[in-house]
């Protein structure tokens, strides 16, 4: 561990140290908003460092990389966490969260996510994933005396522990078969065709199970709606966006660079993608709770992203990154709006409670409509362009059947995305929520919506950035 590797790890070290400092400071100064804003500041500084400070070396002790791709991911996750902290300001006051602890756990989660997506060895990957999930277990069950939150935390803990066991066993099997922890070498080693290849492939299958749990692909998605419903809304937003994105980002380079070695795995990925898109879509249709609907929506979107993983290559990777950014913006925005609607009585979740809210809160209702329509993929918004790029990559890569199923799923998705919007703009009003959102919340969400609209009309900046990262 020399100075160069420490310098290359600077963003992650900033996040971890900032988090510890907030934890210490929180013991003396009990001001919730202050610590949340300090946390957001730390995350933004880490993002700036990752974006603009050139790391002296790319490879960090053979565990992590400081490549442009890894730094892009760090920027993305840090900014998501910063936005989540800003949006939580009013929320933590209402529900009397410990501000220092909340902010520090969020920053630990950000450190975990950025380590995870920068991992180049199984050791680094495992530790990054554990730091992330451990912080999330606690954030999900953060609300005291809330039985749903406790249930959600418990469910995520049990499922997460099982997934971790699968991951550990998978790493052991792959190590047995290839004799290396390095991700790329492990994937290449499988091509050798020696007698231990079945063992290695069994390891890869177990790895897929663990990943499937974390990003909720279909046979492993059952925890998703309950956890999203029970967790505090800003935490659900983080779970649906950055937490899943980090896992995907960690496995993208693996699948892209491994080539022939794990071609046999692609058949399983193909099945998982189709099952995820179809089952998620049909499970989302009858939902009458917006958080559960968004949970199934995130399942379906993970299915779309699986298409990009299967297509692989530069085409698929670029489409995946672009889609991930746009999806994260819209999903974060939707959960952000739910956060701003929260008051002492709890969060507004059922469509019945949303009825007629547009008359009381026209700005936030319009924003929620924009976010949901972007998730659907309605043309002027960025969601359309992202989906277009993804399905185009699938067609070019020779996976037309996946693209067709994706298009069908998106057409059906109009029904479940538009239902809450119709409830919002219903003429009669059933809601009693009269809370005014904080200015910072509104500004942040308007910013998200503006980026979605701008990227939908003029996507070139993000496209060229993504092309710069994945040559």
């Amino acid at each position, binding site marked *: *561990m020399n100075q160069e590797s420490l310098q290359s790890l600077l963003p992650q070290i900033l996040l*971890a140290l900032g988090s510890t400092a907030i934890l210490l400071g929180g013991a003396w100064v009990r001001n919730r908003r202050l610590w949340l804003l300090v946390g957001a500041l730390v995350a933004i500084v880490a993002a700036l460092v990752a974006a603009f400070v050139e790391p002296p070396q790319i490879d*960090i002790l053979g565990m992590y990389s400081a490549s442009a791709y890894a730094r892009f991911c760090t920027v993305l996750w840090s900014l998501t966490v910063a936005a989540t902290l800003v949006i939580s300001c009013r929320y933590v006051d209402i529900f009397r969260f410990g501000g220092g602890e909340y902010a520090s756990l969020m920053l630990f989660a950000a450190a975990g996510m950025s380590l995870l997506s920068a991992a180049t060895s199984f050791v680094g990957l495992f530790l990054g994933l554990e*730091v992330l999930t451990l912080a999330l277990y606690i954030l999900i*069950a953060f609300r005291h005396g809330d039985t749903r939150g406790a249930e959600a935390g418990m469910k995520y803990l049990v499922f997460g522990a099982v997934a971790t066991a699968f991951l550990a066993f998978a790493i052991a099997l792959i190590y047995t078969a290839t004799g290396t922890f390095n991700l790329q070498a492990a994937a290449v080693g499988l091509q050798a065709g020696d007698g231990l290849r079945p063992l290695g492939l069994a390891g890869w299958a177990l790895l897929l199970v663990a990943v499937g749990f974390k990003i909720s692909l279909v046979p492993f998605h059952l925890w998703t709606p309950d956890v999203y419903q029970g967790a505090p809304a800003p935490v659900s937003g983080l779970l649906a966006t950055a937490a899943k994105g980090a896992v995907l980002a960690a496995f993208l380079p693996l699948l892209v660079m491994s080539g022939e070695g794990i071609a046999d795995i692609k058949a399983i990925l193909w099945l998982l993608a189709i099952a995820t898109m179809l089952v998620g879509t049909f499970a989302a249709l009858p939902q009458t709770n917006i958080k559960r609907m968004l949970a199934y929506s995130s399942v379906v979107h993970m299915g779309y992203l699986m298409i990009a993983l299967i297509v692989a290559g530069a085409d698929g990777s670029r489409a995946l990154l672009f889609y991930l950014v746009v999806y994260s913006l819209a999903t974060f925005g939707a959960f952000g709006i739910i956060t701003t609607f929260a008051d002492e009585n709890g969060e507004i979740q059922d469509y019945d409670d949303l009825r007629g809210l547009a008359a009381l809160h026209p700005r936030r209702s319009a924003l929620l409509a924009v976010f949901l329509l972007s998730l659907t993929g309605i043309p002027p918004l960025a969601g359309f362009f992202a989906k277009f790029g993804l399905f185009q990559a699938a067609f070019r890569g020779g996976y037309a059947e996946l693209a067709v199923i994706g298009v069908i799923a998106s057409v059906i998705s109009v029904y479940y995305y538009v239902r809450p919007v119709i409830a919002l703009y219903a003429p009669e009003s059933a809601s009693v929520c009269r809370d005014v959102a904080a200015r910072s919340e509104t500004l942040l969400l308007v910013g998200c919506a503006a980026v979605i609209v701008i990227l939908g009309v003029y996507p070139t900046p993000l496209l060229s950035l993504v092309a710069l990262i994945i040559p």
Partner: protein
Amino acid sequence: MEILFFYLVAGVAIVSAFFVVKCRNPINSALNLVTTFICLAVFYVMLESPFMAAIQIIVYAGAIMVLIIFVIMLLNFGQTIKGRYTHGIAAGGLVSVLLMLVATQLVRSGDATGTGGPVTSAMIAEVGHTELIGRALFLDFVLPFEIAGVLLLIAIVGALIIAKQKV
């Protein structure tokens, strides 16, 4: 002689593992689990890794076992008698035998990868097992070691948050 000893210990390990599942009193199950752990420690000694054996005894047979018995006592499971479930044992036994066959087949069908690490038996004999592990932990793997420290910090903070009363 050594092979005889191996089969003896293996037999004890399997029988005690079976009784972990079969015993109807949780405390008896826990005590059988200790026996299994100690047998595994003996295997580590036979594989010439005394450090692993010591860790196995200290961490598993010691600390974790105390924790398990503590939980059983705390939740008052000590008195409850588990119901009989012969079908479960039969099905579990069948699956275990199948898994064992598959595993043996896999291990026999292939050679090890041949990519040996820098640590050899001669080196272990010369430098010492514990020293090698210590060097690996604090030199080659110091970064994961630190991250594991962060992991423990998160766990402690989390336990406090979940357990303490309202702020």
